[in-house]
């Protein structure tokens, strides 16, 4: 009935960690900032959360070129749509435009996207559009290669009806945990909060993030440790 074509079990994993979370009043989008070409980090401070309209943003993962061109087209179409509609576009329309491009060009594109925003009809909404062009509305979405390390974390920590601060803290903690274990994720954590009051961008540099297992407090130099410490830091 179902012809098998080689190993269907391993889709291409994508560099990045991206997250979108709804809370009571809006959405919080989060991402790391590492763009890699093979093993080299081409950009250590990229901005993967891209604006589509005043009230809708998209988190990009996978091929940088593919995700950029898709967002550019969607921004262009949404702009025209907004003019024709006479009011801000809804998150659902933005997400479906992304889906159309992803689905109809599925053999050529390699990008997973998380669309998040706020509109006056449905409030804060998150839509996931993974590889292949499936569209799924979710209370929270995770994507990118770093997301594999976060399924268990979200299974445990996610709760409905969080406040804005709880949601943002959760997103920052999650991206930071993924960065700790995923080589393709790193740099800073960027968040974008969207609600009825507007949009807020935040920036959490690598040294402001909590330390996890086997990570040490960064120091300026060994010399500082030697001069301040009274014990034996240099052991022969």
């Amino acid at each position: 009935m179902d012809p098998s074509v080689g190993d269907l079990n391993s889709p291409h994993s994508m560099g990045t960690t991206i997250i979108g979370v709804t809370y009571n009043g809006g959405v919080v989008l989060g991402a790391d900032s590492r763009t890699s070409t093979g093993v080299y980090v081409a950009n250590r401070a990229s901005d993967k959360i891209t604006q589509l309209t005043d009230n809708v943003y998209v988190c990009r993962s996978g091929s940088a070129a593919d995700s950029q061109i898709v967002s550019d087209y969607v921004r262009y179409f949404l702009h025209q749509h907004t003019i024709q509609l006479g009011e801000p576009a809804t998150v659902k329309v933005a997400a479906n435009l992304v889906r159309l491009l992803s689905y109809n060009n599925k053999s050529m594109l390699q990008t997973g996207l998380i669309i998040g925003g706020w509109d006056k009809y449905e409030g804060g909404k998150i839509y996931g559009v993974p590889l292949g062009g499936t569209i799924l509305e979710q209370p929270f979405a995770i994507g990118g290669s770093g997301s594999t390390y976060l399924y268990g974390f979200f299974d445990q920590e996610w709760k409905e009806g969080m406040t804005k601060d709880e949601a943002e803290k959760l997103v920052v903690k999650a991206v930071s945990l993924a960065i700790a274990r995923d080589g393709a994720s790193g740099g800073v954590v960027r968040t974008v909060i969207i609600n009825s009051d507007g949009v807020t961008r935040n920036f959490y540099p690598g040294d402001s993030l909590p330390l996890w297992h086997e990570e040490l407090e960064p120091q300026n130099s060994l010399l500082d440790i030697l001069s301040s410490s009274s014990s034996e830091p240099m052991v022969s």
Partner: protein
Amino acid sequence: MKLLDSTDSGNSSSIERTQYPYVTGTSVIGIKYKDGILMAADMGASYGSTLRYKSVERVKPVGKHSLIGASGEISDFQEILRSLDELILYDNMWDDGNSLGPKEVHNYLTRMMYNRRNKFDPLWNSLVLGGVKNGQKYLGMVSMIGVHFEDNHVATGFGNHLARPILRDEWHENLTFEDGVKLLEKCMRVLLYRDRSAVNKLQIAKITEEGVTVSQPYALKTFWNFNAFQNPTVGAEGSW
């Protein structure tokens, strides 16, 4: 609105090859019973070996008389639903008192799947189509290569190997709703034990002359308290 459709004729950048699936649903089972059709599917959509999404509805009503259940690539299923929506809309616009029955919808799906297969660009799904019209029960299946048939019980994917033997043994004409549900649950439980891509959250849908109902999502109890499971390697350490 088709934007840069790769299956457009004249688009020289379209690639003529079979794709591979990314986000996939597993088995769907359908049976005929006394009043109509019962269909069951879990709510999981996997991404390779990861059980990524756990609240995906894979059984949906089509018009007044049919139910469709799908396994395989979810994006292709969503596209099929849109095509069916358009089909039903045009049917309603005729406003002639006639409405498409399950046999017609099944045929439409067969043509859609087979024609895509001929272009080496399949919709990567196995579909179960069930319905009742004018007292006639109908249950059929279409695969991604256009193989189609009707039967008293059908299944997709793993369901063919695990559920159909049970159905061949225990299905009979004029099952009550209760017996039908119990039979489907028996099959779904086996799939939960033995299909790696199954998740424990399912919906059972029924369609009768009166209409369609899809149950709320629920989970099945599982049984692990067999003596043989307690200490399976006693006397043979290292075995499993």
